[in-house]
């Protein structure tokens, strides 16, 4: 008798263990919004994309987002309420972009707050970097053909540092050709006491240009490559605008929490501006690097 009771009890236990058939695949979160945007002194309108964090993957409708978006300039306490705008996307999605017509000030800190009607709020504080410039230094011919450039001042961060080289060369088939090639200077800059020092390796860049063109076109090698111009471009950015590994790889950065500075939410709001300068180099430096001098 006891054995039967035990067996029946075990069977009931097994059955009851598997009775619940409900499943809740979305845990939900109190974090209301994800923000992506930037503040820039070079833009007369500041814009930030706001994505509500939803329990279902669905296309957003055309209705206004339940969000109040404000920014406060913590340097002068100037507070602004931003407007929502609806941006239809080619795939049928709709994005909400909040905007406000003002120019961000150099070296000011802005506090962004986005709140829904339930009082759930995200915020992010972002400091616009101070104004600076590109200062060409004397070329270092001892440790190679290195063209040093200084970005002076208390600049927290720079990225997307690149040089666009303009040059001409001759084809064996079609005469003279003017071309340009942009070469990243990733790994060639570092922060010093005076500011950011970029060390452009002109010889290395010449080899890159020469090999790139010669591999693709029938180049008249006896003519060489005549350097017409050299434009240094970079982004001066807020301190936390630094992707892991120094690379803006969307497949890495798409993971929530990666390159994120939004409190109680996800996403990233940066601040910065572009800087660019034509670098004029002496013919002797160009020749030393391998370029043709007329």
């Amino acid at each position, binding site marked *: 008798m006891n054995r039967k009771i035990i067996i029946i009890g075990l069977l009931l236990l097994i059955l009851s263990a*598997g009775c619940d058939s409900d499943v809740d695949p979305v845990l939900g979160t109190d974090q209301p919004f994800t923000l992506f945007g930037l503040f820039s002194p070079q833009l007369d309108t500041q814009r930030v994309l706001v994505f509500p964090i*939803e329990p279902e993957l669905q296309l957003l409708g055309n209705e206004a987002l339940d969000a109040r978006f404000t920014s406060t300039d913590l340097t002068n306490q100037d507070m602004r309420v931003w407007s929502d705008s609806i941006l239809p996307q080619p795939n049928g*999605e709709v994005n909400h972009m909040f905007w406000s017509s003002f120019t961000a000030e150099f070296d000011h800190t802005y506090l962004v707050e986005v709140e829904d009607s339930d009082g759930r709020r995200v915020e992010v504080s972002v400091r616009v970097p101070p104004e600076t410039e590109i200062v060409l230094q004397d070329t270092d011919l001892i440790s190679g053909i290195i063209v040093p450039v200084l970005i002076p001042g208390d600049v927290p961060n720079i990225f997307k540092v690149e040089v666009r080289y303009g040059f001409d060369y001759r084809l064996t088939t079609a005469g003279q050709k003017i071309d340009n090639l942009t070469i990243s200077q990733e790994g060639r800059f570092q922060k010093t006491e005076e500011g950011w020092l970029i060390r452009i390796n002109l010889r290395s860049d010449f080899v890159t240009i020469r090999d790139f063109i010669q591999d693709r076109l029938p180049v008249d090698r006896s003519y060489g490559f005549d350097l017409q111009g050299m434009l240094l471009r970079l982004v001066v950015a807020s301190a936390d605008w630094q992707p892991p590994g120094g690379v803006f790889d969307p497949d890495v950065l798409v993971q929530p929490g990666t390159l994120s500075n939004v409190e109680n939410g996800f996403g990233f709001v940066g601040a910065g501006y572009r800087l660019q300068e034509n670098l004029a180099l002496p013919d002797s430096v160009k020749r030393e690097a391998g370029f043709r001098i007329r």
Partner: protein
Amino acid sequence: MNSQLFAQNASIRGFVTEQATGQSLELVNILLEDSNGEVVGTVTSPDGVFQFRRLAQGQYRIQASFIGYQVFRDTLQLEWGQVLTYNIALEEDTGELGELVVEAQAEASVAAPIAGLQTIRPADIERVPTPDVSGDLVSYLTTLPGIVSTGDQGGQLFIRGGEPSQNMVLLDGMVVYQPFHILGFYSAFPSDIVNKADVYAGGFGGKFGGRLSSVIDVRTREGNAFAFSGSASVSPFLGAVQLEGPLIPGRMSFLASARQSLLDDLAGQYVDDPLPFEFSDLFAKINLDVTRTSKLSVSYLQTTDEGTLSKDEIVQENDLVRWENRVIGGRFLFLPPNFGGSVELRVSYSELNNEIGVASNPLRLSNIKNTHVALEANFPGQTLSASAGIDFRPITVRTILDGLYQNVNFRIARLINWGNYLEMTYRVGDHLRIQPSIRAQFYKVRFNPYLEPRIRLIWERGRHRVSAGTGIYHQELLGLNDRRDAANVFTAWTSIPSEDAPAAETDITAGRIQDAFHALLGYNFEVSSNLQFSIETYYKDLSNLFISEWTSFPRFTTILQPATGTSAGFDTRLDYQRDNFYMHLNYAYSATNYEAEQASLEIWYGEETLDFRPPHDRRHQANVLIGGTVAGFDLSARWTFGSGFPYSRAVGFDGFALIDDIVDVGRLPTSRRVIYERPFSGELPHYHRLDLSLERVFTAGSVDVTVQGSLLNAYNRANIFYLDVFTLQRVDQLPVIPSIGLKVAL
């Protein structure tokens, strides 16, 4: 001594068949006794082949015996150097009731697995409750411990931690890539055509290559070479026709089977839930005894499946899944003169087309084509048997992936697989068999083989049997599934990234052939003539696995990340059979863990690798199969339990834009995004279900009419089948379904 050996150069070989049908008989005991009373013995191969070599001239008595057949005896005179071809036809023993009972026990096996191998006969299959009269191999497979199915929809089997694409499924030696129908009760193997199926859950020998996990080796019957017979059956699920008979009596026969689902027209009419599934299969086989020492067979299989997992009629068209297998092949078996064995040549072509979406413009498409040429030689012997072979497979895989949230991803790869193997069986004394084998598997046309040593051991004494197996395995083909679904039916077949590709230097996945190490140990105890207990433990170590990349972009992808894994567990079973009653109980514990190695993991989780349970890691599984005959009715009941599958839960959904410059963010491309919890940390609800069936055969002259009633999911458990984490769409497995089937056999 030399002269004695020189004198022993005669041999006897032949085929053993069933007299009534011409069907080859396996495992027939053949004894040969010389004039001095010395006896040697052997058993027939799956093709019914036997052979005795190194015989002296003289008179011999030969005896062939097999349960259920009359013992065959004859006397032979062998001349010096003679190679005697001696074919034997065994007559079925229908004389005594007691022997019939013995036959039933032999056919419906209570045989425990031997070093991972389980042999399944049609009578085993017929015991499992199904929605119609004729059984199907897959219904039985899902009752085996260690085999995990996605349920009654989907057509995917996971064997001891292995994924469906890591299982090799063979039909008469031909590869069938996706043999399981979209409705989980059915496969391309109805029991009417099956002769036997060997299921190697691991530790398989060197004969098989190119797969990491398991082998399901199905051999079909040859068709009756002397008389026509056939059957037709219908149920709310399926209509089936089967026919066989002689083309040239005694020499040439055919076997054909065709099945078509009737779900939409019949079962769908009285089930509340929609059953948007349609499938069919067609099998045909011709056998020819070319000469007294050679046989030729040609087989053809075609399967089609179509269905949607979506309940939403608006999106059903985009979720429509279709696949089609086409397999054709020939097999030539002969006993060459002056050669101590049999030689087999197989040539086959297999193709699978798999797509999802609108037929004219599918969202995702995967296609695999494979030509297979194999040459195999078998050398049977009393103490030492050996087989050796070579096989060559050029394979083409093509995938096109697209979807609402992804870019088009196109990939095509042409692969060359070939392998050589040598497999031997030593009989050491009366109790021990050792089966070492070595396989050299090539994945390129150059000399860089992957060596795969393997060994199986079987020790039997009295009521005890201990078996063990171990080996190394490699696989180049990949089958990728969509990570976003908790269960899904679309598999993209592709290959590992080529080490010759331009990007290979930076691709850590390039040139890494998947490999596995298997080890298993089993014990079987025959408690009594009616009761058997068995337990088998196993361990699989998996390296260089490839799994789909993890991304928060809501998309399907063939971009790969490397992983390693282990699978360990045990299967235990208790089989009881007495008179007209049988009961099979089994329980399997399995723990499968993967460790992903994606480069971004350290950034995302602060860990270089990430342990997770893959979505097929079912930890606990139990089956109870009970049946018997009462008052002329065959009753059977099956209860199945499986613990929940892991899946990745989402925290929520938002959007993503890449901010990498001073730009107007209104012009940036954006994408929707999934905010995942740590991968596969959720667990779906447990699965359990009770199926019942009742069957009776009425005989009128030469006509047998079988009527069957069944009740599937008798207590209407809402077992989850499909969960799309993106849309929260949930599809359950079949609700309670009553069914009546009718079969007429001539």
